[in-house]
């Protein structure tokens, strides 16, 4: 039962939705040009069906008061934890990582879904204290609460998702006004644990980091992806090569071209000007998100909105940064662009969360 009254509809954030659907449109064009054809099995049609599923998620989230979602956080948390654990049991290993579980013909990536649960849990944890204060104990409790699933994600391993969650947590902490001293201590602590992290990393992950530091370390091995992506992007030049001329993408020199590296495909086809348009759309989306966060009076809404927006911002920045060679390679999809059901559904649902908060801003 959707209970959308007039007032709610009046507050739909059309620029946000517009930017999101513009980006989805570009994604579909990109996927079509990578895998043209009319059949339902083509990438574009499959992506489109995921967009449909995502829209349902969006509508469901919009129709529900987000405060109820936050109240349901403990249940969601347990469900999320269960899903993450199920990967270790049901998961199928794809290129060394167990990230997906199979539900009939579908594969679901629980770590994607967990991003949302993470934010909701965060909002719940930071606001569940009766008073206006966030006690030290509550903060530590929150870290423990989030630490368990975080470690599970790292163990899959899905370093990308784990790396997204850390800055999201940081942004939320900044948002709620944790003192600079405490933040500094946290940053120091995480830097201190980095060498420890090195030990946890799989060999291929270490290679990726080393290659980031020196791309010509191994130009035909691990660095191949970085170099080919850079070539693809650069060769688009100012105006792009167009759909037919995008040889790097069409001839499969680009790895993961329809998923994590889709930005390189886009950049090759549409050039710097196309990238400018796409990035402006992303900036619009993210800034609208921050604006919603800033304009929300209700604390849970604020934290949720900030969290959702940070998830978008962090993923976009890391993905494009990595594809353009600014950051090391980690498996993070570009929200709304990359092919992938889990990512698309979660992104649209997250968008629904933002819309929902915006519509109920003035309650």
């Amino acid at each position, binding site marked *: 039962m959707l209970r959308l009254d007039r007032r709610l509809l009046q507050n739909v954030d059309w620029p946000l939705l517009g930017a999101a659907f513009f980006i989805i449109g570009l994604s579909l064009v990109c996927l079509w040009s990578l895998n043209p054809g009319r059949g339902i099995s083509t990438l574009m049609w499959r992506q489109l069906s995921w967009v449909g599923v995502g829209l349902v998620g969006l509508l469901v989230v919009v129709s529900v008061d987000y405060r109820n979602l936050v109240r349901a956080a403990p249940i969601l948390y347990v469900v999320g934890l269960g899903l993450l654990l199920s990967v270790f049991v049901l998961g199928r290993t794809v290129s060394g990582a167990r990230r997906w579980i199979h539900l009939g013909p579908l594969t679901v990536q629980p770590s994607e879904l967990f991003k949302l649960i993470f934010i909701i849990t965060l909002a719940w944890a930071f606001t569940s204290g009766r008073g206006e204060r966030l006690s030290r104990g509550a903060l530590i409790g929150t870290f423990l609460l989030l630490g368990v699933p975080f470690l599970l994600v790292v163990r899959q391993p899905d370093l990308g998702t784990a790396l997204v969650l850390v800055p999201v947590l940081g942004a939320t902490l900044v948002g709620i006004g944790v003192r600079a001293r405490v933040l500094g201590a946290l940053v120091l602590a995480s830097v201190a644990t980095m060498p420890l992290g090195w030990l946890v990393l799989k060999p291929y992950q270490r290679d990726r980091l080393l290659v980031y530091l020196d791309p010509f370390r191994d130009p035909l091995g691990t660095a191949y992806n970085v170099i080919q992506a850079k070539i693809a992007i650069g060769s688009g*030049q100012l105006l792009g090569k167009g759909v037919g001329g995008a*040889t790097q993408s069409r001839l499969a020199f680009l790895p993961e071209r329809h998923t994590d590296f889709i930005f390189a495909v886009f950049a090759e086809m549409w050039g*710097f000007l196309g990238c400018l348009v796409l990035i402006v759309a992303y900036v619009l989306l993210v800034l609208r998100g921050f604006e919603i966060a800033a304009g929300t009076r209700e604390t849970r809404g604020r934290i949720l909105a900030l969290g959702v927006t940070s998830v978008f*911002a962090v993923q976009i920045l890391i993905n494009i940064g990595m594809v353009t060679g600014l950051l090391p390679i980690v498996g993070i999809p570009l929200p709304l662009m990359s092919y992938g059901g889990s990512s698309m559904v979660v992104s649209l649902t997250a968008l629904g969360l933002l819309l929902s908060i915006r519509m109920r801003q003035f309650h």
Partner: protein
Amino acid sequence: MELKPPPANRREAWGRRVLALAVATSIGFVALLGQLWYLQVLEGGRMHELSERNRIRIRPVAAPRGILFDRNGLALVDNRPAFTLSLIPREMEDRNSVVARLSVLLKIPVGELLEALERVPGDSIRPVRVRRGLSLEDVTKVEERKLELPGVIVEVEPQRVYPTRTFAAHLLGYVREVSDEQMKQGRYRRGDMIGQSGLERLLDEHLRGRDGGERIEVDAMGRPVQIMRREEPDPGAQVITTVDRRIQEAAERAMAGRAGSVVVMDPRNGDVLAMTSSPAFPLDRLTGNLDRDEWLRLVRDPMTPLMNRALQGQYPPASVFKIIVAAAGLQEGSLTPMDRIFCNGEFSLGHWTFKDWKPGGHGHLDMRGAIAQSCDIFFYQAGLKVGGDAMARYAQAFGLGAPTGIDLGGERFGLVPFSPSQRSRAKRPWQAGDTVNMSIGQGQLLVTPLQIARMMAAVANGGILWKPRLVQRVERADGTLAYGSSSKMTERVELSPVVWAFLRHSLTSVVKEGTGVLARVPGVDIAGKTGTAQTIAKSDASKGQDHAWFASFAPADDPQYVVVVLVERGGKGGQVAAPIARQIYEAIFLQKVAQVTLGESG
């Protein structure tokens, strides 16, 4: 830890913090745009070039080498497709492992592969040819493992195929990959096949043609997606030589197992109809993968198979030179056809005694008989009458001691001891004994079989010295003429017609009743002269034999063929060289008869 309490304040502070985060995020986006500007605008050109290099492969398409034909349109050499193993350095992702795999697969030493790769830049997109003449079995092996061998391709190149291993080897020459030395000339590309000797080298520019190429778009696995542009190769031009394949084959057959040379020439125009040199080298081996040891074996072979004896072998002309002595004496008036001597087999000069080749001598002889029997005693005296200077002058007039001008390289000049400087090489003054030696074609005199053929042609045709012609014309693939040559007369020997007639008559007697009877072919008048050149017996006893000459033309009254045979250390000219000439004449004339009768009956 606390959330700031007063709502108004809190809202403001919250807004500021969110703004700070938004600004931080925006800075991130600006950084991305900066990187994109750098990659796409500042570095865009370079990146575009890199992407083109990624996807485009150039595959050369070798031009078929021009074919050499004989005068009747029979092919002397032909092409067949051959497989060549090539490596494309740029496409070899992991050079060492690919080389290792290939080495195991085809049993090629790793060093050989690496050496080939080292000669070109590591990112070259042009294939480096590593091994030619791959067997079909090896080709299959490579094709089956294509995906494990990135950067390894099998090219199809036309390769020379020869009727027999040694057919006209010296004349045609061999084709071989351009050497490092030749690369320095800057005219060739690495891996080009170029003519290294004989006509193949002489006409290389024409025969080679121009290689074409294909630009292929490939995907990341190196699989061809489409041919973007194909440039057809220009096939090499066709060469119509003056050689008559059947005569060449007959000459080689006749010389089988012997060292020496045969030259067959048309005295009417100087066309070289056949030219052999034996032992010959195996053409097919020199064209393919010749290993060092085999090459050294060829170079060091005491029988010098690489030398073209027809124009590089220098021998004393021996009694063949008597033609020159007779011509000089008759023309200068120091001899007459009526001169008669009694030959007892010995001739004394001072305290020297010169012997005839025939113990006991020939008895009473006139000049014609002396030529027919090749009487040395007659010519010792004749030589003294004519004099060394006149003999040398006539020898030169007949083209001895000078290059014939044939287009093949490396021709030797021979030697006519004419000028004082040449004579002084002997480091002692010219003596009458030298004149005596010279009159029977011994001493310092040296000639090549080709010089003798040209000289005999002049005797046959009344004095015209032709520049020996090997190539009639070169026709491009589209039928246009790239090169054409007509017969060229280089010198003319002016002798009285009576002298010419006498010489021809006497030479006919040589075959009819003299030393050259073993050359006789029924139904054909052959004029010729035998020669037996004494060689200085070296330590190797078996080598101490004489060189056998037979220089001839036929038919005597209408000369169309000059046949010169030289057999190294073969023995007597009349017994060894003359029968070889007979076999060649038989091939020429009996075949002609067969053709005529076939033509009439058909």
